[in-house]
């Protein structure tokens, strides 16, 4: 009751809240309509594709749709001994439909991924079915078992059963060099086949060091930019921004010209006698090339947030620090540096996230030891056409970035980020 008695009315007797909502409604609608195109754009180009990627990466419905009856009858099978006549019969009936649709090859391929050896025995069964050799009035189980001895092996039937769920984590496990073994346990692949984990680690390592290099080089530049008189700082700003106006490919290509063994940098080293002509160091097609080119390309992303933060720091603060008795270093370390942390955070986060998904530069100058996970993703997108695997790795990358963002928020606080 008390809240009702307290309700404030406008002079016309309408409750104030309702009146306010009415007055604000037009503004709200207008605001929403203004952002609606962007929202739609985001949904279509960002949220929807990510959802699509996610379903693709865990999707295993193809085989579920191919063998509906088999999986249905397998539900009651304990999986320890060979399945019953009923399972064999439903399998045959599913298989016949696939043969009619000429999709039995796909089935063989998919099953072979689960367990080696399915290719042969599926082909053999196909021939029997094609020639109508299987008499459905007799025991189907006996006849299929006669097709190939592997059909008598319970492990193959277990493999079929494992493919029953419409979703699978296999792609994610594969990206971590792991797989589900026969007992449904997560197992590591043999050591000589572990390539993805190396790539993940290398990606994080490269991103980390590129961030460190960008910070070390960007901080003084940003400071100079923020403190120089306008006419010089504008010129310097153009130098910083110039890479932005040049095509990424051109920049990477120019690094190739500079860094290759017969390149400009090596020529210069030979000229000043740093290295001998027949012993030129390799600076490209390895990590060095990746570091150098990526640092240069990502440098503006470090400089700009730092600059925008430094620009707001009043020069009188440093003066105050000095006049109060701090040496220039103390004044810098205790006064100036802590105030630039929001810029450092923003710059590092930006560079790290961009570096972790970098593709074109490592692809061109990285060589074998300088390729990163994104190159692997591209490889699976373009060459093997295993899109679901590429999606899985892409999503893991996205997840990693979100984790870093979360960690950063815990450590520095997102409110402290200043992008400009």
């Amino acid at each position, binding site marked *: 009751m008390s809240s009702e008695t307290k309700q404030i009315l406008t002079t016309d007797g309408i409750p104030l809240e309702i009146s306010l909502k009415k007055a604000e409604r037009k503004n709200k609608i207008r605001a929403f309509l203004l952002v609606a195109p962007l929202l739609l754009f985001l949904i279509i180009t960002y949220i929807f594709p990510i959802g699509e990627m996610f379903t693709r990466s865990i999707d295993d419905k193809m085989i579920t749709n191919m063998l509906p009856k088999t999986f249905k009858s397998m539900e009651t099978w304990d999986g320890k001994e060979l399945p019953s006549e009923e399972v064999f019969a439903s399998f045959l009936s599913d298989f016949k439909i696939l043969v009619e649709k000429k999709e039995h090859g796909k089935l063989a391929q998919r099953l072979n991924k689960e367990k080696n050896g399915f290719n042969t025995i599926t082909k053999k069964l196909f021939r029997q079915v094609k020639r109508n050799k299987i008499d459905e009035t007799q025991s189907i189980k006996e006849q299929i078992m006669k097709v190939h001895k592997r059909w008598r092996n319970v492990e193959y039937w277990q493999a079929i059963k494992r493919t029953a769920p419409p979703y699978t984590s296999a792609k994610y496990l594969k990206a971590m060099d792991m797989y589900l073994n026969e007992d449904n346990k997560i197992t590591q692949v043999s050591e000589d086949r572990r390539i993805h984990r190396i790539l993940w680690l290398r990606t994080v390592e490269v991103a980390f060091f590129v961030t460190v290099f960008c910070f070390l080089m960007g901080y003084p530049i940003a400071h100079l930019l923020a403190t120089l008189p306008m006419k010089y700082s504008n010129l310097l700003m153009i130098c910083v921004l110039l890479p932005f106006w040049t095509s990424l490919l051109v920049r990477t290509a120019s690094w190739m010209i500079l860094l290759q063994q017969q390149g400009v940098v090596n020529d210069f080293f030979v000229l000043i006698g740093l290295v001998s002509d027949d012993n030129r160091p390799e600076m490209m097609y390895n990590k060095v090339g990746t570091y150098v080119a990526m640092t240069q390309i990502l440098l503006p992303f470090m400089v700009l947030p730092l600059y925008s933060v430094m620009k707001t720091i*009043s020069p*009188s603060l440093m*003066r*105050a620090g*000095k006049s*109060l*008795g701090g040496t220039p270093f103390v004044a810098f370390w205790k006064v100036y540096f802590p105030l630039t942390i929001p810029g450092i955070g923003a710059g590092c986060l930006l560079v790290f996230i961009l570096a972790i998904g970098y593709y074109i530069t490592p692809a061109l100058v990285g060589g074998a030891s300088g390729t990163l996970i994104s190159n692997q993703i591209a490889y699976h997108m373009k060459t093997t056409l295993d899109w679901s695997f590429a999606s899985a790795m892409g999503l893991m990358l996205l997840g990693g970035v979100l984790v870093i963002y979360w960690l950063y928020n815990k450590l520095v606080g997102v409110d402290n980020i200043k992008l400009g």
Partner: protein
Amino acid sequence: MSKNTEFVKFDKVDKSYDGKVLVVKDLNLNISEGEFITMLGPSGSGKTTCLMMLAGFETPTNGEIYLDSNPISNIPPHKRGIGMVFQNYALFPHMTVYENLAFPLRVRKVQKDEIDKKVDKALSMVSLSGFESRMPAQLSGGQQQRVAVARALVFDPAVVLMDEPLGALDKNLRESMQYEIKHIHENIGVTVVYVTHDQGEALTMSNRIAVFNDGKVQQLSSPDKLYEEPVNSFVAEFIGENNTFGGEVTDISKDVCKVKLQNGEILANPVSVTSKGDKTTVSIRPERALINPKDKMDNNQTGKIEEVIYHGDHTRVRLDLLGNKEFILKVPNSSNELDLKLGNEIKVGWNSQDARALDPK
């Protein structure tokens, strides 16, 4: 105990930023120990440059500055031991009030309990005890100002510089801060060099005022002398209000001279005129010219009221007097009723002593 009258000494100091224009020209200035001296002048007059040279953020192009008889041009700012209050306070925004005040003590490696004591004392001096853990952004402008003053004093510097410290405060706060700073100065006896362009501030706070214009000290004297006896027309114009007449000296004796104006003649006090025929600007303070004077005055003129502006405690009357249409009178808002109406003619009188014949404009 005799105080050192040359505690801070500017000796023939010149300063130029671009090698073409002198911002400070041949500055010679002695500041005694414990003095409150104000550098007053319009913007661009070189006063802040002088302060920055004293603090060590600018180097004199020529000449030398002495602090307690030691030349300081080659001493970096952090070794000069000069406290400074900046225009925008320059409090460290990422530190609490306590940490801000402890900063100068920590860099001097003072013991922790000693720091606590000094910070406590400094904060109580500016009546901000209990604010130790606040961040500067949580304080009002006046409080930030007081923290800045406390921080500049907490390490017992010999000299404290203040660069327009009250510029960002509103009028009432500014006035109360003026008294507060003045009292702090009186209590601890530190030498203060204060820079401002606000003459009211300069007049209320200082022992002496150096009026700067065009890179030079125009006049250095106590506030009352500066106001009552300006030595040139710039100072007369800059400090307080001022009615002026331009004219030529026609007769001159020891304490009085006759000045011929465009339409009329007045008697004036010869300050910077020496002989007949000198061009001069005669300056009269508005409060020294009286309406319908009862006593006999040296100058008696009649003027026409052009404008009446009500100011609360007084009324300003603009007259057309002797061809000067900007002649201002201040009429106190007392009970005697004057007929101040537009277009009325009134009688105005002043003594020749108060009409100072200065250099021509």
